[in-house]
């Protein structure tokens, strides 16, 4: 893309094609800027080059939405007044990617943009951005530096998210303009370049659609996944271990780094409870779809009578907000730190590799334990990270209650209802009770093939939201 930009500039210096001299210059300038990776800088650079080097370009300007700091949302149009929505409404037939029909590419991209906006809840974003901008303009903003920091961070994130989509829209419109120009001018080289650009945009669109599913507040964070066995003894502890293994394999397949934080084994088999840390981009965004109770129906290998059993395991997912964005300020004096499973005289009397630590946050009663690190110091640090995330989550839930708009995230994140059933006997099926998505191969699901369930739920969630708006 950047290469295209330079090529373009060079051409304009040596032998400017006629269309460059037409009144559509501003669009061309912004076209090059949005093609480049750092659009603002390059737009400015281009402006300087053009302004200083060539005369007769009276209307060179950076598009308003790029330069402006306000929440103003641009009305993006082609030179002849087409918007993305208008393009989509034309219902141009969408052919295969290999077909050299620019209308088909444009229609496909326009559809994707509409879907992306829908998934991002575009109208809500505009309202939110305006609220944030208004809040930022209040003179007493910095009286509360913590909240001010949060507002300006959210404003920045929102703005950059929206700019990205607007840039994408802009890119489409400009390629259409270029395409039309190229045809008017019979510039085959330019036509070919534009076609190529449209095809590559169309290829990227699918990926962007998927990314748009993960545009929630903390979706990009790493997370903790906790699994807890329901009532029912060994059979349900075994089920909890199966669920935990499913997430470990799923996370590893996705390229996330999995660390075991805490594991309470069952007496005979399985786990009573376990927590893993899943490190990687968008770990929380995906894993949040798994919150709730998972139900298993099978002939229990632990039942000598070979009867059919139903067991439950509850899954919680907590985002790790990371430094600088923690929501809850923990006071050292509010903590009670205990040696886990300590007994006897301790000190020089005892040699043990067990150095597990439990940290209790006294005001809330929330606690965290870590036992899988090899030093007490590391166990403590790890337990502290879990505790911080739990308190952050609590704080977010509290704020969400104050702010009715965000109530959804509260119900999504907390321990939820039964979400999925895994039947191994008498028939074989895994069915999501929220989306009705089902798979007839439980082994593959338990082996970590969860993406179908997750993506289905994420799009279902957005559709539901859309209906509520």
């Amino acid at each position, binding site marked *: 893309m950047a290469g295209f930009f330079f090529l373009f500039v060079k051409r304009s210096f040596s032998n400017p094609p006629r269309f460059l001299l037409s009144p559509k210059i501003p669009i061309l300038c912004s076209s090059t800027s949005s093609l480049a990776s750092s659009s603002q800088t390059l737009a400015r650079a281009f402006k300087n080059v053009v302004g200083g080097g060539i005369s007769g370009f009276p209307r060179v300007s950076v598009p308003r939405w790029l330069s402006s700091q306000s929440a103003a949302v641009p009305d993006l149009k082609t030179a002849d007044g087409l918007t993305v929505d208008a393009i989509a409404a034309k219902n141009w037939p969408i052919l295969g990617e290999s077909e050299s029909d620019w209308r088909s590419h444009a229609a496909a991209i326009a559809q994707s943009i509409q879907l992306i906006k829908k998934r991002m809840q575009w109208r809500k974003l505009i309202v939110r951005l305006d609220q944030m901008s208004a809040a930022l303009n209040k003179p007493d903003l910095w009286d509360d530096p913590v909240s001010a920091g949060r507002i300006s961070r959210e404003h920045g994130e929102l703005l950059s998210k929206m700019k990205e989509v607007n840039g994408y829209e802009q890119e489409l419109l400009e390629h259409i303009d270029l395409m039309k120009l190229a045809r008017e001018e019979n510039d085959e080289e330019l036509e070919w370049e534009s076609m190529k650009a449209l095809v590559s945009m169309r290829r990227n669109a699918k990926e962007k659609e998927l990314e748009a599913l993960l545009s929630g507040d903390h979706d990009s964070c790493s997370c903790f996944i906790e699994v807890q066995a329901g009532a029912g003894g060994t059979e349900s502890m075994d089920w909890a271990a199966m669920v935990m293994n499913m997430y470990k394999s799923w996370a590893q397949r996705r390229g996330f780094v999995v660390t075991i934080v805490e594991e309470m084994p069952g007496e005979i088999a399985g786990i009573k409870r376990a927590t893993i840390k899943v490190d990687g981009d968008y770990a929380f965004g995906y894993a949040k779809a798994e919150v709730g109770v998972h139900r298993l129906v099978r002939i229990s290998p632990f039942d000598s009578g070979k009867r059919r059993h139903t067991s439950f395991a509850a899954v919680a997912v907590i985002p790790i907000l990371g430094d600088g964005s923690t929501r809850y300020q923990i006071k050292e004096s509010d903590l009670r730190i205990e040696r886990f499973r300590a007994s006897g005289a301790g000190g020089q009397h005892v040699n043990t590799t067990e150095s597990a630590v439990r940290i209790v946050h006294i005001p809330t009663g929330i606690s965290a334990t870590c036992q899988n690190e090899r*030093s007490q110091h590391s166990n403590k640090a790890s337990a502290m990270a879990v505790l911080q995330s739990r308190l952050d989550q609590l704080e977010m839930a509290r704020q969400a209650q104050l702010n009715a708009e965000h109530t959804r995230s509260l119900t999504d994140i907390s321990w939820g209802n039964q979400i999925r059933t895994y039947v191994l006997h008498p028939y074989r099926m895994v069915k999501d009770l929220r989306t009705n998505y089902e798979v007839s191969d439980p082994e593959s699901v338990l082996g970590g093939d969860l993406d179908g369930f997750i993506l289905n739920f994420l799009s279902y969630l957005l559709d539901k939201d859309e209906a509520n708006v």
Partner: protein
Amino acid sequence: MTLRFPFTVRSPLPPVFASSLHRCLSIPSPSSSSSPTPLPSSDRRPPLFLRPPTFAASRSDLHDFRRWAESLALAAGPRISASDGGPDAALLRREIAWLVEDATVAAASESGVGEELRLRVELEELYRLWRARIEERRPFQYIVGCEHWRDLVLVVKEGVLIPRPETEMVVDLVAEVEGFEKGLWADLGTGSGAIAVGIGRMLQEGGRVFATDLSPVALEVARLNVERYELKDKIELRRGSWFEPLRDVEGKLTGLVSNPPYIPSSHVPGLQAEVGQHEPKLALDGGEEGMDHLLHLCEGSASALKSGGFFAFETNGDEQSEFIADLMSIKFGNFFHNIKLIPDFAGIQRFVTGFRR
């Protein structure tokens, strides 16, 4: 009766192995009752995790080892923990995971590709090591040659006390002292050098730790740890008893820390096997009441510390701590003030701290 190594069997272990093993173990072997013989062959070698991965084994070989080691742990764990509060089966199984972690090359063990794994010891040595862990109750930290302590990985070996998790807090206590970063500190009876390295890493320009020990083995290990953390210009190791090697800095010290031997002599024979049979008595036995060395430290602190200087001592807990605190605030009340008892994470009053007037 002789124990054969299972790797000579070659085939996967039959299910009866655990029970036959249990039978073997219930007959006391002559070596586990006598005092331990440090393994001279392994003594000079670096800890497991620092050795070059010059050996190889197949994934299934390692799997067999784990199965064998776990069956040993499951069979012996309950008995060990019931007899003297030693490790139970769950803890032993975690140790197996760590042993494998230290003995293999991490990258290879993570990825699912390739049948060959690179090892830092021969597979047969791995069997021998784990057998020593279970049968001789050799401390896990001596087996792998290291102890994870705070955010450090310290080299340890027979002849030097394995730093305890409780002692990590001494470093935190030092970090709370105003201006500690540029001060002169002494760690008396440094052992592996754990506290000294912990403090040394926090010091700034001008800050220094004098770490003393009577034991040449301890000083050798401490030197390894100081070098591994590149603290040669911050930590000075000196051989000698308590204050003896510190005459030149008398009255100049910002702070004094120590984890001296504090176990009453009468308790030593009943200690957990890992401790009583393997760790150096010199670092454990505190005399009749356990306070011989602590009292010596209390008496010497007044002249060693400068005005405003800080001390922190680890003790056997509650009663000893109260006794030491009383001594410092009543008998030596003219020299010290702001005496505090600090509990460890198990709630035992583990440390006594205070300041020189």
